[in-house]
């Protein structure tokens, strides 16, 4: 617990944390508002209240997923900054268990990612409700939970992946480049190649888009959640092992 509290102090006392969060949340909110208005203005008048509620949730979680890269970078910087400055040695003197340090960072960042997703989703949802008031939206239907869960897991996963890559490469520029390649370039290239379907299934991007109803289903939702979960946990385990290496 001490380690988690210490990591939280470290993160909140760096200005770059608030910049990353501010940029991520504000751009996502702006785009959510724009996107929701556009989508809602195109709805057929016959939408039921339930369809409208679902539509708002879907529009909002597109926005949430947009904030993933700044959060992934925050994850990376939370450890690569310590390696660059050499302060990681002070951290390891204070908390000799390196896996405990990494897991403490993961807890704090996971919490921040979920908080950020709510900071985008809740105002976005309320805004969507106002814009779509003509359709009398109900409370979100049961089907909305996959969207909410998928979007939240996606942003948390990217944050964890950023942290893991930072811990593995110990260099911010390298780690962020790999993050962008994994999250943006490989899925993009994968879609063009023959067999891209398979690549899509095992990369984190498509499962998240499927869960947030942006792409047609190519796998059961459970499988999509499992892929996202694996991308949050497996790189972290690799990072724990890589951190046992002495520096």
């Amino acid at each position, binding site marked *: 617990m*001490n*380690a988690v*509290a*210490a*990591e939280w*102090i*470290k993160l909140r*006392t*760096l*200005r*770059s944390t608030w910049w990353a969060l501010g940029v991520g949340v504000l751009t996502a909110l702006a785009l959510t508002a724009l996107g929701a208005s556009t989508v809602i203005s195109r709805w057929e008048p016959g939408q039921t209240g339930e369809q409208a509620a679902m539509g708002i949730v879907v529009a909002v979680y597109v926005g949430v997923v947009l904030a993933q890269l700044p959060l992934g970078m925050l994850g990376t910087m939370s450890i690569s*900054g*310590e390696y660059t*400055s*050499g*302060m990681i*040695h*002070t*951290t*390891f*003197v*204070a*908390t*000799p*268990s390196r896996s405990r340090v990494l897991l403490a960072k993961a807890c704090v960042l996971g919490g921040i990612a979920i908080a950020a997703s709510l900071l985008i989703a809740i105002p976005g949802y309320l805004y969507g409700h106002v814009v779509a008031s003509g359709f009398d939206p109900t409370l979100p239907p049961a089907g909305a939970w996959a969207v909410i869960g998928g979007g939240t897991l996606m942003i948390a996963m990217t944050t964890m992946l950023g942290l893991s890559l930072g811990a593995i490469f110990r260099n911010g520029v390298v780690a962020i480049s790999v993050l962008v390649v994994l999250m943006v370039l490989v899925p993009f290239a994968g879609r063009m190649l023959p067999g891209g379907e398979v690549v899509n299934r095992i990369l984190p991007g498509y499962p998240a888009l499927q869960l947030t109803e942006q792409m047609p289903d190519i796998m059961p939702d459970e499988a999509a959640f499992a892929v996202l979960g694996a991308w949050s946990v497996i790189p972290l385990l690799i990072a724990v092992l890589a951190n046992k290496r*002495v*520096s």
Partner: protein
Amino acid sequence: MDMIEVIGLTRRFGQSAAVDDLSFTVTPGKITGFLGPNGAGKTTTMRIVLGLDRPTSGRATVNGVPYRALDRPLTHVGALLDASAVQGGRCAEQHLQWLARSNGISRTRIGGLLELVGLGEAGRKRVGGFSLGMKQRLGLAAALLGDPEVLLLDEPLNGLDPEGIRWMRGLLKSLAAEGRTVLVSSHLMHEMAVTADHLIVIGRGRLLADTEITQFVRPGMSLEDTFMKVIEGSAS
């Protein structure tokens, strides 16, 4: 049992041994100077004691156990290695806050410690703007945070002004007088001559001397001269 013990310690980097079958014990109640030319293996030894590096063979213990086995280690051991290895974006107070929290140490100590090391005015300033001497003082505050019975200080005098050096001498003496174990490395022989009670001298990773300073210094010679002789003698 407030001791640092190094037992048959060897650390190789590739072919060459930075620390070579080194054994010594640092005991409480006095200041032990850790001397040796550049590259002798002082920092490597201290890093291994702190669990930052693993020995090729042999071991090091603090209070009888490996460093990594200590619970809330900062309350037992205070260390100052590379004072400039801090993130510049935080202010001095915030740096000490996370460090205290990591070991469940009350943050009420922070203000007094910053006063003690002469950073009372600079506590709210960003560490990035600190001079080397100010970082050294912050590092010392960090080392004292947990009121530890054992201190490992790697060249703590670097960057300190004359007033700072004199102040450090007094502080180290009072810490030792309180019964703490104090291991200090330095290249400043004149300073060590008036500060240290005991000396551990190493060269090329090997132990050259482990003795009271009064026994080490040869009659009619300064500590510096004796040190040079011992180093030359070991090289031939």
